[in-house]
C-alpha cells in the first residue's frame, strides 16, 4: 500500500508564508514529522486518520488494533512533509500510554467527541499531560469530531446512533452501557465557542471535524503543518537529534559517524512501507 499525496493536500490550501523558503523545492527530501493522536476511547481518532490517509470511513469500526502508524505526505509551499501519525493502539483505554509515545512528537492531535461533554474534559487532561511530558515546542490541535451528528435531529440520526455513533472509531461494542443510553437522540453537547475559547487560551489550534463526511479533516493536518517550525525540525533531523532519519534506507557513513541510528537500518533494507503505510 503506498500513499502519494492525495488531491486534497493541494498547495492551494496552503497560503504562502515566506519564512519557510529555505527548503529547495523539487530536490528536497520530505521532512519527517511525528504526529501523535490522543483522546478518549471512541472519539474517532483512528477514523480521522483513516479519512486523512486513505480517504475512507468505516462505520462501527472496531477498537484500534494493528496499526503502528500511518503515513501521509503533505506539500506545504515548497516543502514536502511526511507525517507519521501514531495511534494510541488502545493504550489510552486505561490511561496507560507510555512516555515513549510522546517522545519527539512535533505535533499532537487531541480529539474529543462533540456529542460527549466528558470527552472534552478528558482531552483537556491529555493536553496537560502533553504540556508536562512532551517537547515544549509541540504543536497541539484540539479537534472536536463527529460534526456530522451535530445539527441533525431527525430519525436518520437515531438510526446512525443506534449502531452507536456513526463515527465511533473504537466501538467497544459490548457492554458499553453509558454509550447505549446516550446514543438515543445523540446531539451536540460541546458548543464550538466554549472549546474554541479554551483552545485560544491554551495556545492550541482548534477545529471541528467529521471523519464520516471528511469535513475539516485535511484542514486539521494542514493547519498543523503550517504551524510547525520546519526550519528547526530540518536542523534537528540533520544533526540527528531525533529518530527516523534512517527509516527509509541504509545506514550511511555520516550516520555511523554520528553514532545514532535505528537498529533496523543496518543492512540497507528499507523497512516495509517506510515510504507509505507502516501498518
Amino acid at each position, binding site marked *: 500500500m503506498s500513499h502519494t499525496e492525495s488531491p486534497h493536500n493541494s498547495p492551494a490550501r496552503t497560503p504562502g508564508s515566506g519564512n519557510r523558503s529555505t527548503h529547495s523545492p523539487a530536490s528536497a527530501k520530505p521532512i519527517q514529522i511525528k504526529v501523535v493522536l490522543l483522546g478518549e476511547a471512541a472519539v474517532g481518532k483512528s477514523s480521522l486518520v483513516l479519512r486523512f490517509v486513505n480517504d475512507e470511513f468505516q462505520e462501527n469500526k472496531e477498537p484500534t488494533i494493528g496499526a*503502528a502508524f500511518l503515513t501521509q505526505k503533505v506539500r506545504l509551499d515548497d516543502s514536502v512533509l511526511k507525517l507519521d501519525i501514531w495511534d*494510541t493502539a488502545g493504550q489510552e483505554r486505561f490511561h*496507560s500510554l507510555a512516555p515513549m509515545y510522546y517522545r519527539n512528537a512535533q505535533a499532537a492531535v487531541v480529539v474529543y467527541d462533540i456529542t460527549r461533554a466528558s470527552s472534552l474534559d478528558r482531552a483537556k487532561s491529555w493536553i496537560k499531560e502533553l504540556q508536562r511530558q512532551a517537547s515544549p515546542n509541540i504543536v497541539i490541535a484540539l479537534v472536536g469530531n463527529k460534526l456530522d451528528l451535530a445539527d441533525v435531529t431527525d430519525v436518520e440520526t437515531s438510526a446512525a446512533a443506534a449502531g452507536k455513533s456513526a463515527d465511533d472509531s473504537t466501538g467497544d461494542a459490548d457492554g458499553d452501557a453509558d454509550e447505549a443510553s446516550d446514543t438515543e437522540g445523540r446531539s451536540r453537547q460541546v458548543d464550538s465557542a466554549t472549546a474554541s475559547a479554551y483552545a485560544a487560551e491554551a495556545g492550541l489550534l482548534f477545529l471541528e471535524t467529521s471523519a464520516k463526511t471528511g469535513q475539516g479533516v485535511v484542514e486539521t493536518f494542514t493547519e498543523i503543518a503550517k504551524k510547525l517550525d520546519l526550519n528547526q525540525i530540518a536542523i534537528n533531523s540533520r544533526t540527528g537529534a531525533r529518530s527516523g532519519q534512517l527509516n527509509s534506507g541504509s545506514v550511511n557513513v555520516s550516520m555511523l559517524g554520528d553514532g545514532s541510528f535505528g*537498529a533496523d537500518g*543496518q543492512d540497507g533494507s528499507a*523497512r516495509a512501507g517506510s515510504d507509505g503505510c507502516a501498518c
Partner: protein
Amino acid sequence: MSENTLDNEEFDTIVLGTGLLESIIASELAAADKKVLHIDRNPYYGGRCACFTLSAFIEWAIEYRDQRQTPLVDIFVGSIDSDSPTFSVRRTAELKQAPAESNSTKTSSHASRLFDRLSSYLTDSQTLTEHSSITERLGKLLENDRKYAVELAPKVAYCRGELIDLVINAGIGEYIQFKGVEHNYIVRNDAVERVPDSKGDIFASDSLNLIEKRKLMKLMTAITDNDEDFAQLLGDCADMGFAQFLETKFKLSGKLLDSVIFAVARAGSRDELGARAGCERVQKYVRSVGRYGRMAYLCAMYGGGSEIAQSFCRSCAVSGGTYILSEDVRSIESRDGEDRGYAVQLGHGCVFAKHVVLDPCYAPDSLPSDSAISRAVCILDSPVFGEDTTAILSYVADAGVVSMLYATQATLAAPSGQCILYAWTNGQLSDTRALLLRALTAVSGSQARPLFTALFEAQDMQPGEGGLPELIYTAAPDSSLDFDSTVAHAQRVVARLL
C-alpha cells in the same frame, strides 16, 4: 465509565510487571495472536528496570522501603568521602521528627518538599545549618530534573546480540533510538585505561608494547576465525578456567589478561568462566564490533531497558494487547473445574486466563532470594570521559569486580556538563558498599565531584512454597551488562506458551 471495566473477560495470558523481560513476553505472545492482558501496579512502565527523572527517582527511593524487595537506599548529596550518607532510607529506621514546618511551606519548592519527605531519614552527621545547604544543592539539581534519566538496572545491547535481533524482528527499531557505546575502560589499581577492543585499536594503542599487541592479535584472530565449536582451539585446555586458558595458550598476563577476562568477557570474578564460556563471550564481543561502527554495544537513549520495554509494550498493544498501569493485583487463584487456568482479581474486576506470567514480586507469598545486586547511581559535576560519549567500565580490585556504565547527554541521560556513573556488583550492600564507593571515586578522580549518589540493593524474589504450581515466574534484571540473558529467559517462556 463502563468501557473501563474488564470484569469476567477471558485472556490467553495475563502478564504482571512491565520490566523488559515481561514486556518481550507480552509482545511476542500478542504477535502470535494470543489475547494478552499486561498489567503493572506502578504508575510507570519498566518495573524493576524503570527509568526516572531525578525527583521521581528520589520519590522511588523513599517508597522503596515499603516494597518487600529492599529495605535500604542511601543517598549522598555532595561528597561521598564520608562513611555516612546524607539520608539513609530504611524500613526499620525510627522515623525522626521532621523539622518544624518552615514558614515557606505553602510556596515551597520541589526541592524543599522532597527534602521534607527525606528529612525523616537524615543521618546524624548533619547539623541544622547543613540542612539548608543540602536543600539548596538538591534544588540546584532539580532545576534540570527532566534532563536526568536515572535507570534502576542499566544495561546495554551487543550490536550483534539477541536483543537487537529481536528488536529488528519485532519491527520496533522505529521506536527506539540507539547510540554506540564508544569506549570500554578497565580500572585497575584505581587507574583508568582504555581497553583496545578492535584490531585497529590494538594496532594503534600507545599503552601496549609490540609483544602484547601480537599476543592480543593472535587471540582475536584465533577466536574470530573459529566457528561456533571451539574444540580445536580449546584442545586439551577445555577443562581449564578461562584465565588459565589465556595464560597457557596465549601467554596473557597482568593488564592484558584482566582486560580480556573482565572488560571483554565481562566475568564477575577471575574464576567465574570456563575456557569455552570465555571464548564464546569474546567471540560475541568481537563479532559485535563493526556491525554498526567500531563499538561492540549499543545504548538506548532516554534510559535503556525502560525505553525498550515500552517499545515492546506498544508493539503488544498494536497487536491487540490490553494495558493497565497503576493496577491493584489483589489475588491470583486457580480456577476449579473444567476451565483450567486462573482467576485474577484486579481493581478493574476479575479476569481469567489460561496462563499467568509474573514478576515474582507480584506473587503474594514471594520471599527475597539469597542473591542480591548492589547498585550505585552517581551524578558527577563534569563529564569525565567527554560530553558526547557513552562508556562501559570494569573496576577490578581484590575486593571484587564492579561493572560500570558512563552516561551523558549523548543518550539524554544527564544535562550538558554533567554525567551519570552507574556501578553495580553482586552481593549485599552491607558487604559491597565500600567497594562501590571506591569504584566511583576511582573513576571520578580529581576531575569531577559527585553531586548526588544513591546506593541501593536490588534483591530478586522467589515464589514461596505455598505458591500455585503452574504460574510462570520471570526474574529481576541480573547483573550482566547486556540484555541477552533477559531475552533468552523471555524466549524460554514464550516457547513454553506457544
